[in-house]
């Protein structure tokens, strides 16, 4: 080959290489596909499944966007923020089937939610599970089947317990298969630290469709304790519907109780007691089961303090009454209610209760059609039950949901009606026992309460309607959006202020950002194409 020919070939090769450099990333050719969004403490997250990317959008002082894009897994099954909004959990099924070593494995991806937008951790999983339950205290995440993974063979009783405060290792995650008597997990509940006979423990309570299992989170090598709710012949078809946990007296180690509401009349009451002498068990506590018979199917349960001591409160809306069960003796005291309240919440500290001696509970309709709300003073429920209910006048609709407001306005609750159509939202002041109505014309209002407890944002998904309610003054500010909204989040800005981010789901997504403390159409920042680029 002549020198000129070699030179020519080298030049041609250079041109080809130069032309091949910097190929356009494939992401430019992929349309945006966002199914999951989440509000975090300092950012808004959007999971773009078409390019396997999580975009974490923080808000600058000037309401600008500071977007960090991070990789994520293939096949998003679930996305949840941590309760404090400091982290985002993304569960990905991975490539199924995996045909090569580079194919993505099932994994839990953990991202920072404070505004830094970092990928904090990635925990690989052995199987493509799709259920995700997050510990309210932020230590654990449990991955479990939800029955929709589509796997050819699936173990529905398999739990993957991940300590997200620790890095991935050979002992983290922990794979557990619950002993099953035919049921599959339906709900998981993390308890607070409980004083058990052998010391402080945290439990994971797993409700299957016919059993309840107690798993010691501090000793995951120990088998769980399973309580079978069905009769031995399987004819009663008892399904757990809710659990309530009470630690009991702080100075007692054997009075921790777990109440189980089911779809049948009656309540199961479990006492976590000291192991009897000589009893061999894998766990260092014993479970004593009592069944409390009731005439109706309860709709809600909760442990309360009354003038007669600790009780399990049970609502029976079909009889328009509540029952107070003494967990020691299982003696039941019945309290007639003015209507068929189906839900309750203990609001003692916010409703002017004595705090040290007895509780105050808020009652509302829930799934029943009961109109209005009432305060239930449990300090005189056992001795003078007929004087314990105070119905709040002015709430003229059935309340489906009660939304908590964080401090400093935690004396407030937002009462969400069954249907918004021409209806009202009430701002309940539990301290003064007043309910202030807020009218809205829309029938599908969503609500976002700020973490600092000062504001609530009302919006209607799919429309451009948005309003802010100042929870101190209840002054509404209706705001203008030039595009339809998917969700609204109230987040901390990088400068320490607060901003409301209304996400617009068209194209590569847009956002309108308001100064949350002083929202103004004129000063709002309107962003477009958030998910464009960044490859």
């Amino acid at each position, binding site marked *: 080959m002549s020198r000129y020919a070699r030179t020519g070939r080298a030049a041609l090769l250079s041109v080809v290489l130069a032309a091949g*450099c910097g*190929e356009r990333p494939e992401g430019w050719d992929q*349309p945006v596909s966002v199914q999951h969004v989440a509000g975090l403490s300092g950012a808004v997250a959007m999971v773009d499944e078409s390019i396997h990317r999580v975009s974490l959008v923080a808000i600058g002082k000037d309401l600008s966007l500071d977007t960090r894009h991070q990789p994520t897994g293939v096949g998003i099954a679930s996305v949840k923020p941590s309760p404090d909004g400091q982290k985002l959990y993304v569960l990905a099924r991975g490539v199924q089937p995996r045909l090569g070593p580079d194919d993505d494995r099932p994994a839990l991806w953990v991202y920072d939610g404070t505004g830094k937008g970092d990928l904090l951790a990635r925990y690989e999983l052995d199987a493509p599970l799709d259920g995700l339950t997050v510990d309210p205290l932020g230590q654990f995440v449990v991955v479990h089947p939800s029955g929709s993974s589509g796997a050819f063979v699936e173990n529905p009783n398999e739990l993957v317990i991940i300590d997200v405060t620790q890095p991935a290792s050979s002992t983290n995650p922990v794979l557990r298969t619950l002993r099953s008597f035919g049921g599959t997990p339906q709900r998981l509940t993390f308890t607070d630290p409980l004083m058990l006979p052998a010391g402080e423990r945290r439990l994971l309570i797993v409700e299957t469709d016919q059993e309840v299992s107690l798993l010691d989170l501090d000793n995951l090598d120990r088998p769980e304790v399973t309580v079978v709710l069905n009769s031995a012949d399987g004819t009663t078809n008892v399904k757990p519907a809710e659990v309530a946990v009470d630690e009991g007296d702080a100075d007692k180690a054997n009075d921790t109780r777990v109440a189980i509401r089911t779809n049948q009349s009656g309540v199961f009451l479990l006492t976590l007691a000291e192991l009897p002498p000589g009893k061999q068990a894998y766990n260092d506590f014993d479970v004593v089961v009592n069944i409390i018979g009731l005439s109706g199917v309860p709709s809600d349960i909760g442990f309360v303090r009354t003038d007669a001591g600790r009780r399990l409160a049970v609502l029976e809306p079909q009889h328009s009454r509540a029952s107070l069960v003494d967990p020691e003796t299982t003696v039941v005291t019945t309290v007639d209610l003015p209507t068929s309240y189906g839900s309750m919440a203990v609001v003692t500290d916010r409703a002017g209760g004595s705090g040290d001696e007895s509780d105050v509970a808020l009652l509302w309709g829930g799934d029943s059609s009961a109109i209005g709300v009432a305060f239930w003073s449990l300090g005189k429920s056992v001795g003078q039950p007929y004087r314990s209910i105070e119905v709040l006048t002015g709430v003229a609709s059935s309340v489906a949901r009660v939304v908590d407001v964080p401090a400093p306005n935690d004396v407030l609750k937002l009462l969400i009606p069954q249907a918004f159509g021409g209806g009202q939202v009430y701002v309940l002041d539990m301290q003064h026992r007043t309910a202030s109505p807020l009218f809205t014309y829309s029938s599908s209002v969503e609500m976002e309460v700020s973490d600092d407890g000062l504001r609530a944002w009302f919006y209607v998904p799919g429309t451009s309607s948005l309003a802010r309610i100042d929870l101190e003054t209840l002054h509404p500010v209706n705001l203008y959006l030039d595009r339809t909204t998917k969700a609204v989040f109230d987040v901390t800005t990088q400068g320490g202020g607060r901003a409301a981010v209304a996400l617009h789901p068209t194209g*590569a997504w*847009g956002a309108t950002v308001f100064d949350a403390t002083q929202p103004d159409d004129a000063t709002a920042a*309107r962003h*477009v*194409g958030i998910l*464009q680029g960044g490859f």
Partner: protein
Amino acid sequence: MRTSLFALAMAAGSFALIGSVAIGATAAPGRVAAPPPAPAPTAAPSSTATPAPTPAPAATAAPAASPAPTASGTEVAPLPPASASATVAPSAVPVGPPPPAAESAAPVAAPPMAYNWNLPVPAPAPEAPAKPSQPWTTRDLSRNFWQLTLGVRNSWITHEGFDPFATTDSLTQVSISGTRTLVVAGDVSLAAGLSLEGGSRSATARGAPSDIYVLRPGAVLEGRYHLHNNVYASLKLVPHAARVAASIDEPSAAGTLEQVDWRFGMDATAGVAWNFVRTLGANPVPGWWLWTDFGYGFTQSKDIVLKANADESSAGSRHQLSLGTLAVNGLLLRVGAAMTF
């Protein structure tokens, strides 16, 4: 008056022509006793009357004309060969202007070329500079010329800011330029001029139609080394201003998002040009060249901030999208044709 003058001039001309003929007819008064010979049947009167000497090549090339009928049957001395040939071979006389003397001395072996109406046969020594051959210029048109080019420029833009607007790194532009040789020193010459290049790409950016148009008006400074009369190599600098117009129809915005900005740039290329027509044997004016050059184009990097083209009074007018920075830098290749004169 003008008509009268023209008529007078025509009359004078006719008189002079008639006088010539008369003079010719009585050229040998003392030697002719016989009546004047009969006119030669093939001789054109005007040719006969032409006193000018005929070209030598024609005279030598027309021996068949010697038995001119004008000499038959008379005692008149034969006419000089030149006169005789002039009268019988008018078709061999060039109709163009008389060639320079030097050309008359050139060898006659080469046949006349079909399109070579006024140029000499190519010099036998190829390295010798061509002689000025145009009656209207004395410039050496192989080195010293005006040049107009039309071509295609392809740039390989690897900057990530180009990705939203094109599915590949290629940006093809139409390229035109005009230059004039300013300095010729032996085989080296220097030219300067102006250029204009423009082209666009379009794509979709995550489903949003997008496009970019780049226009580069620039100045050309070109140094040439003439390897041959028909070939030169060049180094070219083109400082230019690049007008970059980008747009994207992002559905989350109220209207098309656009940005137009100007930025400075510089192209540096090396190339070669070939006068293929002359190499093939012809040498027309203007001259025709094929050329190509290859190098790198640098352009200033700027932020891409696309703003909505919406009514100023609407909220959409505040929509803007930042896509980072863009520099339309990269290797470039130009090919095209040029005309020189």
